[in-house]
């Protein structure tokens, strides 16, 4: 018997639902739990010069890093809080944050050596089960420091370094010193200055020339304490002709007062290299997520940011790519989902600083239950960047009247012979679309989910399969009870 369009739709929905079936818990049950605090050290709330020195002493850092931190602290204190972005930025209370919490003696390479409480948490979140299945390396950060780190032995034999940033500073100091903060200097902005002063944890990746890391490297970031500040620092260096895909995920317990996550991520793609950096951000709705991410792509290199923002109270994050060498390519794929009480201020920046460079920005946002999503982007073509091409597309989907979407695109073009396109759409889930799907036998909620899934599908399909399934689950979770 030939299949009809009706059965096709039903099959699609049935398979969609099957993959999502076991997710009916809300965030609090699935990610929002917290453990008892058996910490080796927990700094009192507030940021002082003494604390910055103490963090550096704890880590037995070289003098240059201690000086770097203290200078960054001065920058942080001297700079005013940004007044753009979101009014809720003014609610961040820097005196109410714990800036450093040490949960474990050191970063372990064996899962058995990780403290029991911490291990349980990551087990519950599916790590390191995932490592055994499909990853080339895993790092797990709990509060301020990385508690577990492991990388595939074959990759290590090829010279790939994948470790936490604290260890990298001890074991690869020359490499760290050469590149650290060259992409994002401490005085770049107030939050980068804060991170530079109190940074702890994060990943360091070095891929030698010509080495292709076929399976992704993953880092998982977990906040446990109330009013915690997490300030990881990541540096990825892909040497000539190499390839690496780095994936990060993050969650936190649900508390009634706010936490702060402020990372700095620097990527360097040497000639002919390719870096893909995927984020699935799912912080609880009491986390301010204020992150600076920037990459440099040299000649013939490619950098791709795949940036999915589902959680947090406020996210302000604009991953950027500076195309510094001829024929370099930059790509930013961004999804933002803003539910009740959330503001996702996301987007991306591309700077064409060399001839014949190409780039794409595809941003999609969904707002529901009064949530607000903003696209904020910059596309710059510098003088001399002849023959550059870029396309920016940002689409917003509003699920109800109470929600809001804004677009703030900036385009600066310094040359004549370039090809730049910008498209933006804002749409609502229309009655006609719902009626069409419901006339094929779907319930209203299923129809609405199908429309949302179709909307984000072009970006979700770029995620590794396991993350695509997880992303669909998360969207499903966010959509629960959105109808009626």
């Amino acid at each position: 018997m030939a299949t009809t369009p009706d059965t096709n739709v039903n099959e699609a929905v049935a398979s969609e639902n099957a993959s999502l079936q076991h997710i009916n818990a809300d965030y609090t049950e699935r990610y929002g739990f917290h453990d008892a605090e058996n910490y080796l050290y927990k700094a009192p709330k507030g940021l002082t010069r003494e604390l910055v020195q103490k963090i550096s002493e704890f880590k037995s850092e070289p003098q240059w890093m201690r000086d770097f931190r203290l200078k960054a602290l001065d920058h942080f204190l001297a700079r005013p809080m940004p007044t753009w972005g979101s009014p809720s930025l003014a609610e961040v209370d820097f005196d109410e944050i714990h800036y450093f919490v040490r949960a474990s003696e050191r970063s372990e390479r064996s899962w058995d050596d990780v403290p029991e409480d911490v291990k349980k948490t990551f087990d519950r979140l599916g790590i390191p089960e995932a490592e055994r299945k499909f990853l080339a390396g895993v790092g797990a950060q709990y509060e301020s420091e990385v508690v577990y780190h492991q990388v595939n032995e074959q990759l290590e034999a090829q010279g790939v370094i994948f470790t936490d940033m604290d260890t990298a500073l001890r074991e690869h100091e020359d490499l760290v010193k050469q590149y650290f903060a060259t992409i994002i200097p401490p005085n770049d902005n107030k939050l980068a200055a804060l991170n530079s002063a109190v940074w702890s944890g994060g990943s360091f990746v070095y891929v030698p020339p010509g080495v292709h890391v076929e399976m992704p490297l993953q880092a998982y970031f977990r906040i446990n304490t109330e009013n915690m500040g997490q300030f990881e620092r990541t540096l990825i260096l892909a040497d000539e002709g190499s390839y690496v895909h780095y994936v990060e995920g993050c969650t936190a317990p649900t508390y009634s007062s706010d936490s702060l996550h402020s990372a700095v991520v620097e990527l360097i793609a040497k000639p002919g290299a390719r870096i893909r950096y995927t984020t699935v951000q799912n912080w609880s709705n009491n986390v301010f997520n204020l992150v600076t991410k920037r990459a440099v792509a040299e000649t013939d290199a490619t950098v791709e940011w795949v940036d999915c923002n589902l959680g947090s109270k406020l996210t302000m994050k604009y991953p950027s790519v500076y195309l510094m060498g001829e024929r370099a390519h930059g790509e930013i794929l961004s999804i933002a989902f803003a539910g009740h009480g959330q503001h996702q201020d996301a987007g991306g920046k591309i700077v064409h600083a060399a001839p014949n460079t190409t780039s794409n920005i595809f941003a999609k946002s969904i707002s529901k239950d009064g949530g607000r999503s903003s696209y904020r982007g910059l596309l710059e073509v510098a003088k001399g960047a002849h023959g550059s091409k870029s396309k920016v597309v940002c689409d917003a989907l509003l699920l109800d009247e109470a929600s809001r979407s804004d677009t703030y695109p900036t385009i600066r073009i310094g040359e004549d012979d370039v090809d730049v396109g910008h498209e933006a759409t804002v749409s609502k889930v229309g009655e006609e679309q719902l009626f069409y799907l419901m006339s094929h036998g779907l319930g209203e909620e299923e129809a609405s989910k199908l429309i949302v899934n179709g909307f984000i599908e072009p970006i979700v399909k770029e995620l590794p399969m396991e993350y695509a399934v997880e992303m669909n689950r998360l969207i499903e979770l966010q959509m629960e009870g959105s109808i009626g």
Partner: protein
Amino acid sequence: MADIIEICPLSELPPGARRIVEWEDLEIGVFNCAGELFAIEDRCSHDDGPLAEGEFDTDNCTVECPRHGSLFDLRTGKPKTLPAYVPVDTFPVVVEDDIVKLEVD
């Protein structure tokens, strides 16, 4: 045709010192890096803010933009860190009869 402008006696610009001078509509920073003199336009290529009053590192011969932290090599005018990526203008400096002079055009 380049103009030569007199800045000051060399004794007033010892190693580690700097001086910001105006010439027509330009502001120029003149630096003494351990005995070698360099001059750059006092305007960061990132957002046109003042540059020469930033932190001066005589060992590495750099100046750091006070606004967003880009580090510029005083010898070449090239940025060593982002967010600036375009070099700033440099100007030849000479010392004649113990007077520091700047060549501008």
